[in-house]
């Protein structure tokens, strides 16, 4: 016998279902959601601005949760594309978060109702007086926008449901052929994902200022989404382990890897953000610089600086060492901070277009966040109420349980 053999982790002895926790989580999340909805309704009704402010706050919250689910979908597809073994025990939760995309399709409806409040290109009168917008009308018009939204959500809902269901089916049958099937689809899936995610970011966010354009915008939104997801993932497993679930199967090595990914995408986000800023700043062309100018004037300058330090410098310093990444309680602190910064990033993308020089923080931002967040968590918990929290019969689950960081 080799002296270094450690007993293998046995999934069968592991508490790997939400069990009695599920109804509680759903109730609390729904309560928060209902509170958020009620508060939102009350505040929006009392604002007497025709919903202007509500729609913007809603868009921020909606895009925020959308980005987390999109990040999760990307993670799931990428794991299959790369035939990854280490991440098998993490994949189910990612699948569950991604499977919120059909829910988000329904939650997109308020954005569509508020189209005229949010997007100036949707107003025929504005377009009639704007030469640039007339040139773009072939793309930026209400009907095509709705068609595109339908396509995006159809693709996302289809992919996320496929991956979630096939993975659940494998829990029952243990058929390794299902893994091969999911891997085969992952190539086309990632292509579809890239196209829909990029154009969705153009449509939902970039067209808030329809004069402005930036080819890297899709990559910027992608970087933020993935980072947000990698920040959320260790928190999910931390909470699950605190409640006694998956205490052995998700090891220190997994937390280390999640921390590494959060670190890597912190740097990637900064790289993309800097590339976009640098090129526009240096070229100094009026048709582009206005977008950054709005974010550098008045109170927005402080938000921009907060992003520079809070979205990059602080997480970079907090995550660079191996030490915190291998400690569960320590890793979740910077990742919670990143989740907050990711929200601020989206806020920073949306709000300056309507409020120059002033940061219009409002209670509506909070209530919309709570409303959507409550629904988001409740939907995921409801989905997982009777499911295993790990892909227990994945052919590579043993590898995932036993891998080590060098």
């Amino acid at each position, binding site marked *: 016998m080799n*002296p270094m053999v450690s007993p293998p982790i046995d999934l069968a002895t592991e508490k790997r279902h939400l069990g009695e926790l599920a109804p509680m989580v759903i109730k609390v999340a729904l309560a928060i959601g209902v509170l958020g909805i009620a508060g939102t309704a009350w505040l929006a009704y009392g604002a007497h601005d025709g919903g202007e402010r509500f729609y913007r706050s809603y868009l921020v919250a909606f895009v925020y949760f959308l980005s987390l689910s999109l990040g999760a979908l990307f993670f799931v597809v990428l794991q299959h594309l790369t035939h990854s073994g280490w991440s098998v025990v993490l994949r189910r939760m990612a699948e569950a978060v991604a499977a919120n995309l059909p829910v988000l399709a329904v939650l997109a409806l308020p954005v569509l109702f508020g189209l005229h409040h949010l997007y100036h290109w949707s107003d025929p009168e504005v377009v009639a007086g704007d030469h640039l917008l007339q040139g773009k009308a072939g793309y930026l018009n209400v009907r095509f926008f709705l068609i595109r939204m339908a396509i995006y959500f159809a693709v996302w809902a289809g992919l996320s449901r496929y991956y979630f269901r096939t993975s659940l089916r494998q829990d029952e049958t243990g058929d390794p052929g299902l893994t091969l099937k999911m891997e085969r689809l992952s190539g086309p899936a990632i292509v579809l994902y890239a196209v829909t995610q990029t154009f969705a970011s153009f449509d939902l966010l970039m067209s808030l200022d329809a004069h402005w354009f930036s080819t890297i915008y899709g990559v910027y939104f992608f970087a933020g989404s993935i980072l947000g997801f990698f920040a959320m993932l260790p928190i999910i497993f931390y909470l699950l382990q605190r409640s006694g679930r998956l205490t052995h199967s998700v090891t220190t090595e997994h937390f280390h890897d999640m921390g590494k990914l959060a670190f890597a995408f912190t740097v990637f986000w900064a790289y993309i953000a*800097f590339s976009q*800023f*640098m090129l526009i*700043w*240096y070229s100094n062309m009026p048709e582009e610089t206005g977008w950054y100018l709005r974010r550098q004037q008045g109170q927005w300058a402080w938000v921009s600086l907060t992003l520079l330090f809070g979205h990059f410098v602080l997480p970079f310093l907090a995550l660079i060492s191996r030490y915190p990444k291998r400690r569960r309680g320590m890793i979740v602190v910077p990742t919670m901070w990143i989740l907050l910064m990711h929200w601020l990033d989206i806020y920073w993308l949306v709000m300056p277009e309507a409020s120059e020089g002033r940061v219009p923080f409002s209670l509506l931002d909070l209530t919309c966040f709570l409303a959507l967040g409550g629904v988001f968590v409740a939907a995921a918990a409801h989905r997982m109420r009777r499911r295993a929290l790990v892909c227990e019969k994945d052919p590579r689950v043993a590898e995932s349980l036993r891998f080590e960081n*060098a």
Partner: protein
Amino acid sequence: MTGSEKQLRGLLAEFGSTDVLLRAAERVRDAGYTRWDAHTPFPVHGLDEAMGLKTTKLSWFVMACGLCGAGGGLLMQWWMNAVDYKYIISGKPFFSIPASIPVMFEITILVSALAAFVGMLAFNGLPELYHVVFTSRRFVRATNDRFFISIESADPKFDAVTTASLLTSAGAAVVEPLED
């Protein structure tokens, strides 16, 4: 060697596989030796723990050098373009942070990488033109397919007989003296 007697510098033990080597390393470690080493053709996983090695301080050295590189790179650009040799080109400011980031970044990486490489060599005492283990004819296979443990005679616990028997009982295929 001008006629003088060869001196015993230590013992060299040869092992056939990583498994045996790992167990032998644990025994040497537990016996309390400090001036000894294992020699392998490739980094053997788990050997650091088996030998009881502490993690190197190299990372701190690299980090310190990298920070100096970042600060130095920024300072250099500011001093050269905004202090010592000011000239206006394309109406650009003499000094600005965004335009300084690429060069600052490259210098940070350059200095850190040099620190990692040179630091690794320096901490390892390389380059080293001579070492007593090279006197062994067997030792040429340490870079090929065999595994060795060498224990220096300078080790306070070293005793030619007991150390040799420890190595033999730990599974060494051959134990031979190192002399020069």
